[in-house]
């Protein structure tokens, strides 16, 4: 039984975060539609999208690097499944003492796979999108890490489940001033990681015809979409566990998850798309300043 546990974790992560990701993205489309006074798609829409994409033919362009073109969606999905398994390992298995570090660098892999997708396409628009994606990555990694360092400084541990357990003894991390500011900074940085408006330059539909995914069709495109959907649910679950006390009580956990999801969708719907230089100026200006301010407050003990 002990030998089987890692495999059960990975299968469980795929099932749980896959289903949660698909339904969260449907909620995102439905809330966006309601905010625009429309009706929006039915609940099975994302399942239908995936099945339809699995049934279309896959077209590989002549100039493309075939191995990287077909491998990048697969590696993207595998990496996000392992990231979800790290989150689950705090509950069901022996977590490592430093699994926050592994979590942060595994969360970078989807962005790198999107960059690889664009540059291995052999299309000019794809490489423009890939360059934009790398500049985005350069921008929001720093505020993201600063925001995640605040509870580490407070509690002196790098283990995600330990931080969640500390919150059960004291207040939630949002209750502290430094935790609250770190939560806001983290949500904005995560919006960039997801590729949502206002930070979605790399996949700007109307500007560069689909950006990095311009040459993808069929099952590879379906796998990329699945990777983005699972990134949404893994990220929101991580924010709930890290800043808001976790899923110890299932009902309030689901409520916290929905609050964070609605926050992300509201930010997505009320902002226009920013240019790349505006994104960099915002991330390295105000967001990093607030991140450092939260870190100083955490060191002082607030």
């Amino acid at each position, binding site marked *: 039984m002990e030998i089987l546990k890692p495999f059960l974790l990975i299968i469980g992560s795929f099932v749980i975060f896959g289903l949660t990701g698909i339904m969260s993205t449907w909620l995102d489309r439905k809330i966006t539609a309601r905010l625009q006074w429309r009706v*929006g*798609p039915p609940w099975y829409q994302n399942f*239908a999208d995936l099945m339809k994409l699995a*049934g279309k033919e896959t077209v590989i362009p002549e100039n493309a690097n075939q191995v990287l073109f077909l491998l990048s969606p697969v590696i993207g999905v595998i990496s996000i499944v392992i990231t979800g398994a790290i989150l689950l390992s705090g509950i069901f298995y022996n977590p490592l003492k430093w699994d926050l570090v592994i979590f942060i660098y595994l969360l970078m892999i989807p962005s790198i796979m999107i960059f690889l997708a664009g540059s291995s396409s052999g299309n000019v628009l794809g490489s423009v999108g890939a360059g934009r994606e790398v500049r985005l990555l350069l921008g929001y990694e720093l505020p993201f890490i600063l925001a995640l360092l605040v509870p580490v400084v407070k509690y002196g541990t790098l283990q995600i489940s330990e931080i969640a357990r500390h919150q059960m003894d004291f207040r939630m991390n949002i209750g502290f001033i430094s935790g609250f500011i770190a939560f806001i900074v983290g949500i904005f940085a995560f919006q960039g990681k997801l590729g949502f408006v206002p930070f979605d330059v790399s996949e700007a*539909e109307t500007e560069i015809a689909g950006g990095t995914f311009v040459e993808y069709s069929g099952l590879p*495109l379906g796998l990329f979409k699945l990777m983005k959907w699972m990134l949404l649910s893994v990220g929101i679950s991580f924010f709930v566990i890290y800043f808001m006390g976790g899923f110890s009580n299932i009902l309030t956990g689901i409520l916290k998850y929905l609050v964070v999801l609605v926050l992300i969708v509201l930010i997505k719907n009320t902002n226009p798309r920013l240019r790349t230089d505006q994104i960099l100026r915002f991330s390295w200006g105000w967001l990093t300043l607030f991140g450092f301010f939260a870190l100083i407050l955490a060191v002082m003990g607030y």
Partner: protein
Amino acid sequence: MALDLKTRALKKSLFVFHLSTGSCNNCDIEILDCLTPRFDIERFGMTLVGSIKHADVLLVTGICTIKNSYRIKKLYEQMPKPGFVVAIGACACTGGIFKDGYQMAGPIDKIIPVDVYIPGCPPKPEAMIAGIVKLLEKIK
């Protein structure tokens, strides 16, 4: 239902790519109308995509000029099959008022195979939705 899973999924989620091959843009405005809250075709699963490789349906407006005929042929070949073509407007169906122009390569079906014709100048959004329903019945 006698359809297999793949076809049922295709009927429920069509990705639409819009192409104007020399139209007066009136039909394009009416296509945009279908996405607004009054008619809202997103509740049927149809969204507008930016790249032809993501699309299932190629919506063509306008009579095809000679310069555009190479491009529309290439775009049709780049669309991953199974894919469909919908000709919207009187110019795309039969040539309309530009039928005798010197630089026209003819209505759309002289260049690529068309599945659904939606006549009108411009067709109302209700007519376009009726045309899409006929396309959905044709998918088998």
